[in-house]
């Protein structure tokens, strides 16, 4: 099962309500994924600093903040439930190393200049409330509600998966060749934190993008290399892309108006969006890459 949702705003007037629009979409998809939920929000911040979304689990926030500041002198830290957003000029490898060496119980869930990712075990309703999604603004966002099939119900097993700077992926479906692919990607130096199939797809995408392929080429190659059932939404700094496998058993419906483009597993996730009844509503065709803004 699993539910996936995404919304890309064309009309800037809606930016302040991005969080509340997405929250309702996620809650509506609770029936498809009650185990865990997560979301990635993009805003048009374009500072010099990177933003790191870190899940600190049970660590004491004040201690974490204090200790981390010892390793990062420009650290600017903001707390949101059991996640923190760390702003620093330091590059990803350096931050990863600090976390790995000194904060074993934390995990980096995503990083970039504009992306913030939050994900946790629990029903979408609980997760949305926990992270106060309603208060977020931004330009576009994607989200996921999970019904676990391939691996355990954990934060690491939750989506979205970060695939690189300002990139992330959500997935409805299951991949059958993820073990082989994981072995191949590990040899190329890509790290994996879980046994999850989607994380492999995320690694595949980041590896391709790092090799100077664009998102459309990457996803088209994915049609050849990723075996299984899937509807993917890949978020980038400027927008998102959608791809369904060629059998297209996993659902997706897109609604487009002059103000926004929304995608969801089922229409009911979008029924609350403004003007949706007059939107252009269609199903993405199998094996075709659709993208907006990227």
């Amino acid at each position, binding site marked *: 099962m699993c539910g996936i949702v995404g919304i890309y705003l064309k009309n800037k007037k809606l930016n302040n309500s991005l969080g509340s629009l997405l929250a309702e979409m996620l809650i509506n998809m609770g029936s498809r994924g009650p185990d865990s939920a997560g979301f990635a929000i993009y805003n048009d911040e374009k500072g010099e600093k990177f933003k790191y979304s870190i899940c600190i689990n049970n660590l004491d926030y004040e201690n974490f903040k204090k200790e981390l500041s010892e390793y990062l002198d420009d650290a600017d830290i903001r707390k949101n439930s059991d996640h923190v957003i760390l702003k620093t000029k330091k590059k990803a490898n350096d931050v990863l190393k600090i976390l790995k060496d000194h904060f074993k119980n934390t995990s980096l869930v995503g990083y970039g200049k504009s992306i913030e990712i939050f994900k946790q075990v629990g029903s979408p309703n609980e997760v949305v409330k926990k992270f106060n999604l309603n208060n977020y603004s931004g330009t576009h966002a994607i989200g996921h509600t999970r019904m676990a099939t391939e691996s355990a119900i954990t934060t690491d097993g939750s989506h979205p998966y970060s695939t690189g700077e300002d990139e992330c992926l959500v997935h409805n479906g299951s991949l059958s060749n993820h073990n082989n692919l994981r072995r191949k990607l590990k040899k190329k130096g890509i790290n994996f934190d879980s046994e999850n199939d989607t994380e492999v797809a995320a690694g595949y995408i980041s590896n391709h993008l790092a090799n100077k392929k664009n998102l459309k080429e990457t996803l088209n190659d994915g049609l050849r290399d990723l075996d299984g059932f899937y509807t993917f939404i890949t978020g980038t700094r400027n927008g998102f892309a959608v791809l369904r496998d060629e059998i297209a058993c996993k659902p997706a*419906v897109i609604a487009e108006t002059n103000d926004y483009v929304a995608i969801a597993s089922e*229409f009911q996730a979008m029924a609350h969006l403004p003007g949706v*009844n007059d939107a252009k509503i269609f*199903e993405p*065709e199998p094996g075709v890459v659709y993208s907006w803004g990227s």
Partner: protein
Amino acid sequence: MELDLKKLNLRNVNDKLQNLDRKKNERDFTIINPEGNHAICAGLNNEMNVTIKGHVGYYCAGMNQKANITIEGNVGTGVAENMMSGKVHVKGNASQSAGATAHGGLLIIDGDASSRCGISMKGVDIVVKGSVGHMSGFMSQSGNLIVCGDAGEALGDSLYETNIYIRGKVKSLGADCIEKKMDKKHLNKLKKFLKDAEIKNFKAESFKRYGSARKLYNFKIDNSY
């Protein structure tokens, strides 16, 4: 009578329509605010007219008998699945598996239907004014599938005895599906369907007929590749 799904519980609405009070002469219903809910109007079994104003979710009008249901919007997976009789008219687009396994009745889709339209149909007549996706008519056994637009890959794969009429392009035919001669009796039948679906701008002569080559009916020991 107007039924508002924002105020009423879906189960209560379906229950009311499934158990019509025969003493009351109420046969016309309008459902508003469907908001993509699943299984709206599933299991109706009496003559009545229902109009749904808006987009619906999965299995709308499933197992329909006798009722005349119009959806003024798009429908999700499996509209009119296993319909026995009656009529279902979708004014928008349909998702996959429209009319799946349906035994009878008429399903009209004004827009496009996506993959596996008419999968395993067992006697229903389906008219799609737009195009259909891949594997439409898969393993279909009886009835008629009429498509005014194009058909996707593997049309009519492994079909038994359904008549498929396509006006536009067919991307590819599935196993054991072949183009067949359009006889006068087929033309007359097709004309009736076009009339029933109020299609005036296309002539029956502009369609091509597809059906089973009947080579998969029996296991052939020398089938080898």
